[in-house]
C-alpha cells in the first residue's frame, strides 16, 4: 500500500540527532520526510505545505512549545494528518493529557524498538490511506449523485417535451381523420339524397311513396326522350316489371 501512495512525514525534535536517526529508519522503508527542530517551525511548515502530511511524529520535550501542545495545534490546521508523540518515561502525565484531549493517535516510547517503530508507522500510513481513499469515494459519490440528479431532471423534462410533440401530432391526425370522415360521408350519394329529402320534409311515408312514383315517371320520360332522339321508342314492357 505504501508504495502506491506518496506519503510524506513531518518529524519534529529539538535534537537533530534523534531526527536524523528516525529519518534513517523512514528512508529504509522508502518514506519521505521533512525535519523541523521546533513546534513553531513545524506549524509554519504545516501552513506552507502544498501536499498534506500523512503523519506527524513529534518529540514531547522541546524548549518552547511541547510536543503535545504542537500536536494539538497541528490537529486544527490539518485534521486528517495522523499525530504520534515521542515520549520518555517521565512524560506519562503529558501522554494521559493528550490522550484525553484526543490530540494524539499513538505514542512511541523512547528508546524505541526499530521493528516496532516501523510497524507503528506502517499502521499509521495505512490508516491515513483509508482516510484519503474514503474522502475520494465520498466526493465521487456526491458528484455522481449530482450528475444523476441532473440527468433525471433532464429526462423528465425531455419526456414531457416528447409527449407534447407526440400529442400535437396525434391531434393533427385526429383532425385530419375527422375531416376525412366528413369527406367520405359527403361522397355517399344515399346520405346526400337523405339530407336533401330531410331538408324538403319528405321523410314521411306518403310523401316518399309519391316521390318515388314521381321519380320513376320522370326517369321514364327522360329515357323516352333519349329513345326518340335515337329513332326508337321505349318498349311497352320493361324488364324487371
Amino acid at each position, binding site marked *: 500500500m505504501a508504495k502506491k501512495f506518496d506519503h510524506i512525514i513531518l518529524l519534529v525534535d529539538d535534537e537533530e540527532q534523534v531526527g536524523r536517526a528516525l529519518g534513517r529508519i523512514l528512508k529504509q522503508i522508502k518514506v519521505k520526510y521533512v525535519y523541523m527542530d521546533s513546534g513553531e517551525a513545524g506549524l509554519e511548515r504545516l501552513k506552507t505545505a502544498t501536499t498534506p502530511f500523512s503523519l506527524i511524529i513529534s518529540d514531547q520535550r522541546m524548549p518552547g512549545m511541547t510536543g503535545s501542545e504542537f500536536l494539538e495545534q497541528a490537529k486544527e490546521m490539518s485534521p486528517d494528518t495522523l499525530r504520534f508523540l515521542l515520549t520518555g518515561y517521565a512524560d506519562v502525565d503529558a501522554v494521559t493529557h493528550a490522550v484525553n484531549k484526543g490530540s494524539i493517535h499513538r505514542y512511541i516510547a523512547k528508546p524505541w524498538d526499530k521493528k516496532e517503530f516501523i510497524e507503528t508507522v506502517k499502521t499509521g500510513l495505512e490508516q491515513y490511506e483509508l482516510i484519503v481513499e474514503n474522502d475520494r469515494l465520498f466526493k465521487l459519490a456526491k458528484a455522481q449523485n449530482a450528475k444523476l*440528479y441532473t440527468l433525471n431532471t433532464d429526462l423528465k423534462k425531455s419526456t414531457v417535451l416528447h409527449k407534447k410533440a407526440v400529442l400535437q401530432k396525434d391531434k393533427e391526425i385526429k383532425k385530419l381523420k375527422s375531416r376525412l370522415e366528413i369527406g367520405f360521408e359527403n361522397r355517399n350519394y344515399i346520405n346526400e339524397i337523405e339530407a336533401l329529402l330531410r331538408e324538403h320534409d319528405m321523410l314521411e311515408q306518403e310523401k316518399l311513396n309519391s316521390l318515388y312514383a314521381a321519380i320513376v315517371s320522370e326517369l321514364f320520360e327522360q329515357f323516352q326522350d333519349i329513345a326518340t332522339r335515337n329513332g326508337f321508342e321505349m318498349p311497352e314492357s320493361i324488364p324487371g316489371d
Partner: protein
Amino acid sequence: MSGSEEHAILVVDDDEPIVKNMRRVLKRKGFSRVISALNGEQGIKLLEDTRNHFFLIMSDQRMPGLSGSEFLEKSMVLSPESRRMLITGYSDFDAIVDAVNKGEIHQYIAKPWNNDDLILRIQTEHDIYNRFQERKHLFNLTRHQNTKLFDVAAKQKKNLERFIHELEEKKQGVEELVQALSEARQEAEYKEIFPGLDELLTRTITMNQKNLAEAFSISRKGVMDTIGVIARKNGITFSPGPAPSGNTGRLPEDVFEIIDQVIENVVQAVEPALFRIGSEPSTGMGIDDYTEVPDFGELAFNDGYITRGEMDMAAKELAERESDRSTGLTISTVLVEKAFLQRKDLSRLFAKLAFIQTRLLDREFAQILIEREVASKKDTDRAFRKQLNHFEDSGISTPLGDILVESDVIVPELRDEIIATQDRSGTVKPDNAPKAPSSDYGTVIDLQVSQDRTQAWIRVPESLLGTTDIMPVKALIKKRGITNGVAKDAEIREFIKNGTDPLEKFIVAQGTAPRAGKSAKIVYHFNTEYDGKGVVRDDGSIDFTDRGDSPYVKKGAVLAEKQTMEEPCNGMDIFGETLLVGEVADADLKAGDGAGFSEDELRIIAEVSGQPSLDAAGAVSVREQYTVRGDVDFKTGNIHFNGNVLVTGTVRQGFTVECDDLTAGEVNGATILTRGDLKVSNGIVNTRVESHGNIMAKFMNNVTLFAGGNLMVTREIMGSQVLISGSLNNEAGRITDSLVAARLGLSVKQVGTEKAESATIRLGTDDYIKWVAQRFDREISGIREELDRHITEKQNLDNTYNALHVDVANQTFAQEKLNRKMEFVEKNMGRADAGEERQNAARELKEIEESITRADERIKSIFKEQDTIMQQVAACDREIGSCNDRILAAEQEKKDLIDRLEKTAPVPELKVNKRIYRGTRITGPTATLVLTREMGASKFTETDTGEPDAPKQITCQVLNL
C-alpha cells in the same frame, strides 16, 4: 470516533483481574460492550453466534488449549472484518512481527500495558474498522450509482430514439392522411361532373331499344333501392307501386329539384352496372372471349357462317392444293370459291378479325394505364364501350388510345409511348397457315376427371388423331372449368398429332395431391393402463395386497419414446381448389419425478428403480414406495412423501397423507392428497380427497372427493359430494343423498331409496375440470397478490431511494453555497485589520466549516441508508422473479392438466341396472331432468336432436336386463 454502541469488543484471556481492569478502562472511553471469554474455544462459540458483531477481537497469547495466535487465525474465518489484537506477556517481537506480516493480527500489546497506550491502540483499530465499513458502503454506492448513471443515459438515448421513431410514424400518418384527403377530394370533384343522362347512356351502352330498356330497368331499381334504404333508416314503410299519373300533385313545388338530384346521383351510382348491358353474347364466342386472334376459318365457324364440315372440306382442299399456296391461296379464298361463304361476309369477317386483334392489344393498353394509375377502370370501360359501339356502327376498329385521347383522359404523348412498347406490327393473322384436315367434331372427345380431382385425361377419337388442331380439346378443358396444371399446348398438339389409338389416355391436367402428415406419437414402454384393481372379496372390500403384477422398472430403463411429427402439405385440384388435409398435432414428452430425458430428448429414462406411471398431465414418473405398518396416527404424524405410500391400517382422524399413489386399509376423518391413485380396501369416511388419479374403495360416507380419474366403489356412496373427470363404476352398490358428477358417465346398480334424500347425478359435465381451473386460479391469484406486494414494496423502496437522492443533491448544493461564502469571508478576513472585525470573521468561518461538516455527516448517513435500500431492492427483485416463475409454472400446469382432461369427449350417460327412485335429479352438460317416478333398469342419456338450435334433453331408455 471514540466509543460506539453498535460494536462490541471480544476479549479472550484466562486472567480475570486483567479483563476486569480492561473493561473498566474501556468503559471510561465509551467502549461499553466488552465481552470476555476464558479461552479460545469459548471465544469461537461466541463468534459462531451470528447475533454478535465484534469490531475488535483481543486475545492473550498464553492460554490453555488454543494459543492466542491460533485462536485469532481461526477467528479470521468466522469474523473476517473484525480487527485482531494479540496480548503478549513478553516481547517476542520477531514472532509477533511475523504474525502481523502474515495478516493474522493487526495489532499487539505487551503485558503489562500502559492504559493510555491500550486506549490509543483500540481507538486506532476502531477508527480503521469504521473506515473500512464506510469504504465498503461507498464502494457499493458508487458502483450502483455508476450503473444508474449508465441506465439513465441509456434510457435517455432509448427515449430519444423511440420519440424520433414515434414522431416519424406520426408524421407519416399525417402525410398519408393528407394524401388520402386530397385523393378523396379529387374523387369527389370527379363525381360532381354529371354529363347529363343522354351522354352518360351513350358512353355506357350500345343504343338500341333493348339495351335502353334494360338501362332504364337498372336505373329504376337503383332509385327503388336508394329510397328503400332511406325509408328503412328512418323507419318508414316504403311500398313502391307503379307510377300513378297526377300523383305528384301532393308533392311540394320544388320537388323537381329533388327528382333531378336523385336521378343524377342514382344513375351515376349504377353506371358500372350499365356497362354490362349487352356485353354478354347470347351464343358462341363473343368478341371479348378470344384470348388470341382466331384463324379465319375458326371465326367463320364460330360466327355461324360455315359448318364444321364445310370448314374441314375447305381445309382438305387447301392442303391438296399446297403447291398453289405460294400464289397466296388462303382458306378464305377456298371458302368463297366453294360458295360456302359469300364475298360480302368476307370483308365483315376480316374486319372482325382486325377488331379482335385491336381489342386484345387494347386490353393490354388499358391494363398499363390502370397500373400506372393514369386512368380508372371506369374510364377504360367507357372507352371500350365506345370502341365497340363505333365498330358495330361503322365496322371500323378505333384504337382505344385514340378514344381516350379524344375524351381527354390521357394525352397523345402517353398513348404513343405505350403503343411503342406494344407489338402492334402484325396485322390480322394470315389465314394461309398450314392447316391439316380437321376431324369431324361430331365425334366426342372423352374427358374424365379422377375421383380425387387431381387429374384429368382425355381420349381422342380416331378422326381427330393425326391432326394438329387442339382447339376442341382446349375448349373442352375450359368448358369443364379446369384451370390448374393444364398440359402445354405443344404437348397436347404432340399427342393429337402422333396418337393412333383412340383408347390411349392422355393426361391434360395434373393437380397436386395433398400429403397427409403424421401426428407425433408417444410410445410407452410400460403398462400405462395398469389400474391396480385389487381383488374384490365377497364383502365388497378390495384386496390390494397382490401387487405382483404392478409394473416395476429398474434405473436406466427406457420408459417412453417419441415418434416425431411429419408436417402435412395441402394440394390443389385441377379446378384450382385447395385440397386440405387434416392438421397434425405435436406431442410433448414430459418427465416427472424419478425420470429424465435422454440426450436427444426423444426418450424418457428411469432415474430410480420403482413403479412407473403416467399422470394426468402426461408426465412419466417413477415412484419409490414408503410403507406404514399399521395406522397413520400420532405415532407417524402427517405423511408427505414424494412417492407411493402403503398404509396397512387406517389413516386416522385429523391426519393428512400427501403422496403419489396411496394404498390404505381404511380412511377415517382424514385429508388425502394424491398425485396418483387412491386405493382403499374398506371405506372412506368423513374425509376430503383430492386426487389426480383413479380411486377405489368399498364404500364412501360423507366424503368430499375430487378426482381426475375414474372412481370404483363396490358398495354405497352416501352423503357425499363427488366430482370426477372419469367414469363411476358402482354396479353393485347404490348412491343415496349425494351429488355425483362424472364426466365419462356412470354405471350404477341403484340410485336412491324409498326413504333417503334424493341424489343428484351429473353426467358428462365438466365440474371437475372447473374445480381444477378454479383451484389453479386461486393459487395463481394468490401468487399475483404476493407479486403485487413485492412490486409495491420495491416501488416504495425506489421512491425512498430517490427521495434520499434528492436530499443528497440539496445538501451538496447547500455545501457549495457555503464553500463560496467561505471563500468570500476568507478574502475579507485577509483585508481586515486585526481586532474585532478579524475575530468576527474567524468565528463566522468556523461556523461555516461546522455547517459543511454537518452536511457531510448527513450525506454520509444518507449514503449508508441508500446502501441498505439497494440491498432490499435486490431482495425484492429476487422475490418478483420467483413469483413470475411460479405463475408461469402454475399456468402451464393448469393448461396441461385441462388439455389432457378435455382430450376425451364427455360421455353424458347414466346406466342403472336395478332401480332409480323418484326425485333423483339428472343433469347433463345442458339439460336437466327430475325423475317423477321410480324406474327399473334404464339408461339416461343427454341426446342431441341434431337441430342446431333445438334444446338438448335427457332421454331415458328402459333396459331389458
